[in-house]
């Protein structure tokens, strides 16, 4: 009986640990395309029916080297943040963001939750966004969401 309890305890501990490792980390990125010169912008933002899309034209996602699309619902109102709250957050650089999504496309394990912070008429709004699964050029043509590079 003692042995059984010990075994159960070990099992429970290991499950607990595995569960703790799985918990995704929240990451924040401040989208501020207005301050970047037009030629150097690689984020394209638009609405497509009822989804709001942030398209990162990095050609970086495996296995098709496709662009990354972050989506959220148009109805998502977001939460208002103050400047002090944003200063406290650890914001990602664009490179770190690309590293994370490339790693996700290779390993296919959701380790992060993405939050984008937007500046809308002086108000800072936080939105939870999802990374769309990488899609091939064929899929993009089929869905008619091709963005021809200039």
């Amino acid at each position, binding site marked *: 009986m003692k042995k059984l309890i010990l075994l159960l305890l070990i099992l429970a501990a290991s499950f607990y640990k595995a569960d703790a490792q799985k918990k995704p980390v929240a990451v924040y990125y*401040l989208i*501020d395309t207005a*301050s*970047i*010169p*037009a*030629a*150097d*912008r*690689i984020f394209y933002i638009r609405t497509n029916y009822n989804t709001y899309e942030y398209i990162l*034209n*990095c*050609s*970086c996602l*495996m296995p098709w*080297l496709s662009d990354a699309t972050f989506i959220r619902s148009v109805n998502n109102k977001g939460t208002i943040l103050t400047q002090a709250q944003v200063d406290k957050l650890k*914001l*990602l*650089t*664009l*490179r770190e963001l*690309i*590293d994370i999504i*490339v*790693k996700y496309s*290779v*390993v296919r394990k959701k380790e992060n939750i993405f939050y984008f912070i937007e500046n809308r008429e002086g108000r800072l709004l936080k939105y939870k966004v999802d990374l769309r699964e990488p899609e091939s050029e064929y899929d993009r043509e089929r869905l008619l969401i091709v963005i021809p*590079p*200039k």
Partner: protein
Amino acid sequence: MTLFLYNIARAQRPTDTLNYLVDTAKTPVRDRMFDIGREGDYYGYQLACKCLTWQNDAVFTYRVDQKGTVVSPNDLKKMNLSNLTRLIYVAKEYGIYRRDKTVFNFIEKIGDQYIKHRVYLLEPRKNEIAY
């Protein structure tokens, strides 16, 4: 036969030109994509896009002793400048097909004037990233 070979050589020659103005100073630090530095006899521009095969970054280089051409601001306005999206797209195409279709020219602002250099895109290498 000679004509045939000549045609093949002609077909493989780069046909397209891409001019890009490297101006990282205007972009906020968080959003900068370029790492510029000198390594030995080469200047390198590392574009951290992970867009070549094996998750490589696109690295453009030119030799230190290569003299660039001076471009006046008036000429720059007439020039057909590309954007970063296009640059990444072309680099990706090279990573897949390994065909030199494009001549890359990078323009940098040094003091008052602009200097144009022809740069070469390095081939992607297989590396050991433990993902």
